[in-house]
């Protein structure tokens, strides 16, 4: 296992460090700048009416005419740049085994090592979890560092931040599990990434359409974003048990299915 983990480290350490630094910087900047930008959001609502449903879709709650200081912090955790960075990392990492290995032709080398596929998958999963923790910690650190530049009234409590972080962690697991599943089902990394990207895009779209369309609202439970609602967590200051449970269930089901498929499938490299 040590050797397999070392392989992952050698291959991914530079990339994960870059993503961590990127997330640190983005979280820091957004934490510092968003309250100022969103302070005059009612003017923007007047000028661009479509902005409000978009923000509502992102936050999961109606912000009203003015976005409060705390809600502006919630916007930080749902900002597309933050989610894009986290998901880009996940899509890149979780699509490597086996689709990525087959795609670039290194499957012969990796799968002919004296390690069972369970062990290979376990090593890959450990790398995924470790990098996820690192990524979220860097994001959190960026937020904390930048908080010192924000007016005290606009700061989130540590408890609220950690609750949002736990919800984001559950979302990370769900998206990663889904990526593993698509990768296990595919021989082409591009297809695997495309499939997960499609699911995420559909989730966003459904969440957005649910603001206007009843039919979309009725099936919004299918959207993964429905279970990631930082604004509600910040408002209620309660652990989002049901949302986290749903996301963890998706993650567990997808991960288990991908493990089962990966261990049983033929690796066709011709």
């Amino acid at each position, binding site marked *: 296992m*040590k*050797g*397999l983990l*070392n*392989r992952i480290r*050698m*291959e991914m350490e530079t990339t994960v460090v870059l993503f961590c630094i990127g997330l640190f910087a983005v979280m820091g900047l957004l934490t510092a700048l968003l309250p100022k930008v969103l302070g005059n959001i009612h003017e923007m609502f007047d000028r661009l009416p479509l902005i409000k449903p978009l923000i509502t879709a992102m936050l999961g709650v109606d912000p009203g005419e003015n976005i409060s200081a705390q809600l502006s912090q919630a916007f930080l955790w749902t900002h597309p740049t933050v989610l894009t960075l986290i998901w880009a990392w996940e899509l890149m990492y979780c699509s490597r085994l086996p689709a990525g290995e087959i795609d*670039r*032709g*290194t*499957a*012969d*080398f990796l*799968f*002919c*090592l*004296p*390690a*069972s*596929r369970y*062990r290979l998958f376990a090593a890959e999963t450990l790398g995924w979890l470790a990098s996820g923790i690192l990524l979220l910690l860097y994001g959190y650190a960026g937020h904390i560092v930048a908080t010192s530049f924000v007016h005290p009234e606009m700061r989130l409590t540590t408890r609220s931040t950690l609750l949002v972080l736990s919800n984001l962690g559950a979302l990370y697991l769900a998206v990663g599990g889904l990526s593993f599943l698509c990768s296990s089902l595919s021989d082409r990394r591009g297809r695997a990434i495309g499939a997960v990207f499609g699911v995420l895009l559909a989730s966003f779209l459904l969440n957005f359409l649910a603001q206007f369309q009843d039919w979309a609202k009725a099936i919004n439970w299918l959207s993964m974003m429905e279970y990631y609602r930082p604004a509600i967590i910040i408002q209620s200051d309660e652990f989002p048990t049901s949302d986290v449970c749903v996301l963890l269930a998706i993650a567990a089901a997808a991960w288990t299915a991908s493990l089962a498929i990966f261990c*049983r499938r*033929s*690796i*066709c*490299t*011709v």
Partner: protein
Amino acid sequence: MELGEFPNLTFPAARECLCFGWVRQAKSLGKFTFLQIDFFPRILLDMAILQTHQLTLSYGSRRGIQQVSLQIEAGRIFGFLGPNGAGKSTTIRVLTGLLKAHSGTAQIFGLDCWTQGALIRRDVGYVPGDVRLYPWLTLARGLDFLSQVRGRDLHRQGLELAERFALEPHLSVRKMSRGNRQKTALILAMAHQPRLLILDEPTSGLDPLMQDQLMQCLREQAQQGSTVLFSSHTLSEVEAICDRVAMIRQGKIVEDSTLAELQARAPRKIILTLPEDSPAPEPLPPNIEVLWQPTSDNAGRPSTADALLLAGIPPEQRPRTWVLQIRGPSKSFLQWAAAQPFSDVVLGPPSLDALFRRYYETDEPHETPPTETPAVEMPAVETPAVETPAGARS
């Protein structure tokens, strides 16, 4: 050190080995004997290292392999021949546990290749046909990594091999030529001195000197008891190193014989030069056929095929030259030749190329070895004579 399963080994024999300290632990369970091995002389095992039975796999509508049955004993260098797309790599991928066969069985060291692949791969070295390695990998890093994965230090053997193959250990794959990537893969496959080496077209990308070095390495490995499965579509390299050859064509095994058996069946070319004004030779024995003979039609201007046969023969000798082909034992030829007034005879080596070329060229796979005349090839005038009757030159 591993736990293996050897159905053909009796428990008393295993216990005897235990007394010699070769085996750490031996347990009998039903008809199987389980051994935890430190060192074990393979000859005692009396078993096939690799065995497939009626192995079948298809890629949907595409042909894969059909009822492939192979058996390779310990210490052999087994040639696995076949044209491109014949099913060599598919068979190998089933053996390495990458592909699951639709029917049939594949076993290495008596273990199932699909369900016990990880255990098998501890003692197997594999070089794929199309070597692709991680761009960041260097030989030194690869040895570090494999030492950790295999649980033993491979640096000494790996660096020795690197010296033999003239490979810089700290050069990364992204900066390597194709030949160097091939060398890296070979070294990483051989560094742990595996009991079985599976090599899929291992010489591709290597220069002739390195090919020789590889052949030498493989011979040494075989002398030390390792078994080699050498897959190739080039007959000459298989002929140079292997002691048994199987040929696969359109997914089916069409030939599986020792090299000696094949050589006995392979045709040889004979170039016979008669003295001037000598009478025509007596009728030929049945196992000899005439590929070219001087006639009034062709003596002056030979056709392209005839020209190939006569290449290397001085033009003034051509009107007196016969090119013959013999199959099977050469005794009948020698008896016949003793009575002929020839001035010179050159007897070529057995042409396995001619034997196998037929498999490559015909559409339908053969179930039995071919008996007809193979396609015309270059005459054996430049090769040393193998057998020369009295008065003949080589």
